[in-house]
């Protein structure tokens, strides 16, 4: 009953090759779980699989179970063997089940907030439409809830902001608004895919604080997908590191950063300025020049395979 989302033995594959090759992950309720990895590691696809949003060419197998605390109104599709409150299986779930889960129980924000905001509708309209459609609120109620949402994500001057269009906000404010839209139906899980990657550090800091607050204020659990271990260190409670479709290490934040068990995790930290395993620039150059000779085709993390996988990730966004 403590896990909001439980992924077990998840496999995602295209016709020709696997993207995610059997991973387990438990998102603790009221926590931020970081999913780290480089491009092509399968981290984004894992997040998309939760919402059944994989590209048509990919198939998922295994299990993704969403804790069903407010089971009223939602059909518990095949909740055999769930924990006390029951849970909903999302892999292979019907359109109705996914429809009831998307946005209402599990919401998502992306790297580029413009993808989730309609450029020609006011922020207020987008929020109230969402609220009225999903929650059946009246016009006035929806409006006041929308204003409250903008206040919650710290968009300055919430009331006036309702009448403005997305392009009238800065990138950071747009990301906050995208988060507000995602939070509209009080989801229990928020999937955040590189939510701060496109932002400047000063703006990123604010969004990270917001994510932390949303979790600490209760209710929300966040699966934070990012390649940026600095961001992980700042907000994640637990961190799972993925590489080429597999989990190489999963540990509480502090343990991962101070006592990484896996060689790959250690190599990531070695290349990360400011980490306790940081190597000097000279050492890094030596490794780059001596250690990886002929890396092309040998399947290192830097090999072309990763680049082509990135196409798949990018294309789905």
């Amino acid at each position, binding site marked *: 009953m403590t896990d909001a989302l439980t992924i077990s033995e998840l496999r995602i594959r295209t016709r020709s090759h696997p993207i995610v090759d059997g991973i387990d992950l438990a998102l603790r309720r009221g926590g931020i779980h970081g999913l780290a990895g480089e491009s092509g590691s399968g981290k984004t696809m894992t997040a998309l699989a939760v919402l059944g949003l994989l590209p048509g060419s990919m198939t998922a197998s295994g299990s993704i179970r969403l804790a069903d605390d407010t089971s009223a109104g939602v059909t518990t599709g095949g909740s055999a063997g769930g924990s006390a409150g029951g849970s909903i299986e999302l892999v292979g779930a019907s359109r109705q089940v996914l429809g009831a889960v998307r946005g209402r129980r599990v919401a998502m924000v992306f790297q580029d907030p413009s993808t989730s905001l309609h450029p020609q509708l006011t922020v207020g309209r987008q929020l109230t439409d969402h609220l009225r459609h999903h929650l059946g609120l009246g016009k006035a109620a929806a409006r006041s809830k929308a204003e409250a949402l903008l206040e919650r994500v710290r968009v300055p001057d919430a009331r006036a902001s309702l009448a403005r269009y997305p392009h009238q906000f800065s990138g950071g404010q747009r990301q906050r608004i995208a988060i507000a839209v995602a939070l509209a139906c009080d989801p229990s899980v928020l999937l955040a895919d590189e939510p701060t990657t496109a932002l400047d550090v000063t703006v990123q800091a604010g969004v990270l604080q917001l994510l932390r607050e949303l979790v600490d204020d209760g209710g929300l659990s966040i699966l934070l997908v990012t390649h940026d271990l600095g961001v992980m260190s700042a907000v994640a409670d637990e961190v799972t590191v993925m590489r080429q479709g597999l989990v190489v290490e999963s540990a509480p934040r502090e343990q991962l950063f101070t006592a990484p068990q896996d060689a790959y995790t250690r190599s990531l930290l070695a290349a990360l300025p400011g980490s306790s395993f940081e190597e000097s620039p000279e050492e890094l150059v030596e490794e780059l020049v001596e250690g990886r000779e002929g890396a092309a085709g040998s399947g290192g993390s830097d090999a072309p395979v990763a680049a082509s996988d*990135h196409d798949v990730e990018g294309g789905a966004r």
Partner: protein
Amino acid sequence: MTDARTTRPDPRDGAPAGPRDGVGAGMLDPVSTAGPRWRRPRLRLGRWSAPLGLFGAAVGVLWILVAVLAPVIAPHDPLAQDLPILQAPGEGTLMGTDALGRDVFSRVIWGARVTIPLALLLVVMSVLIGAVVGAIAGFFGRAVDEVAMRVTDLVMAFPTVILAMVIAAALGASLLNAVLAALIVSWPAYARLTRGLVLGLRSSNYVVSGQLLGFSPLRSLGRDIAPNIVGPVLVLASLDIGTAILLLSGLSFLGLGAKPPTAEWGSMVSDAIQNFDAWWIGVFPGLAILTVVIAFNFVGDALRDALDPKSQTIRGGGTTL
């Protein structure tokens, strides 16, 4: 103000932006750039594109063989008027005879010798002239660009076929003049396409890198730009072979191209008008035009699909549309 940074690379960044612009603007087809622009109904061949392309190539090669081997294949002299007139197909000849007692089958075969090489010549010349003008306009810009583009505007402001007719009529009816007229109306499409592609690549990082390394304009064009734009230009050219055949036989049909007694498909169709009951006189050369045009179009479409980076992503990522 703070939105534009992307830390993750877009895999499509590498693809030159130019080709899309050129193709998207409906420049692919000289005919389609006539006054009120109509677009060639683009064939949506999907996964049949490659097999149909092979089929088209086979038919095209077959026709070229027919043209080369015409004297061997044709049972009769295409000009000899020594057979019974207006004989139906099967009554002694494969495709019947025309009003002057000539063998339609032999004339269709010899017709391949006239139309196909001229169409190829026309396309090659259009590509050469258009590519050179377009490349210079796109790379050097300013006045050169301005002048070249206004000339193309001038040509493209008129409906292609009508302009070609007017020019051919003014030059006097002959096959060579028909080709010249067709050339005048068809090179601007290549100039515009090439210009757009060159313009798109000009500011690309690798062209700039070359310039920073001391490349001369000619070297930039030859080494960095040309190899990266031949694809789209070839696609347009291959799609255009069919159009060129249509245009040339159309001019001949109107009496502005091949003169009697030349065995030319367009003029053969036009001969048929006088003998409407003898359907075979017009239908067989018409079928010849149809098969050649479709064959080259299949090839062109397959080439376009094969060279289109988007279609590759679709195949790679398997996203079904």
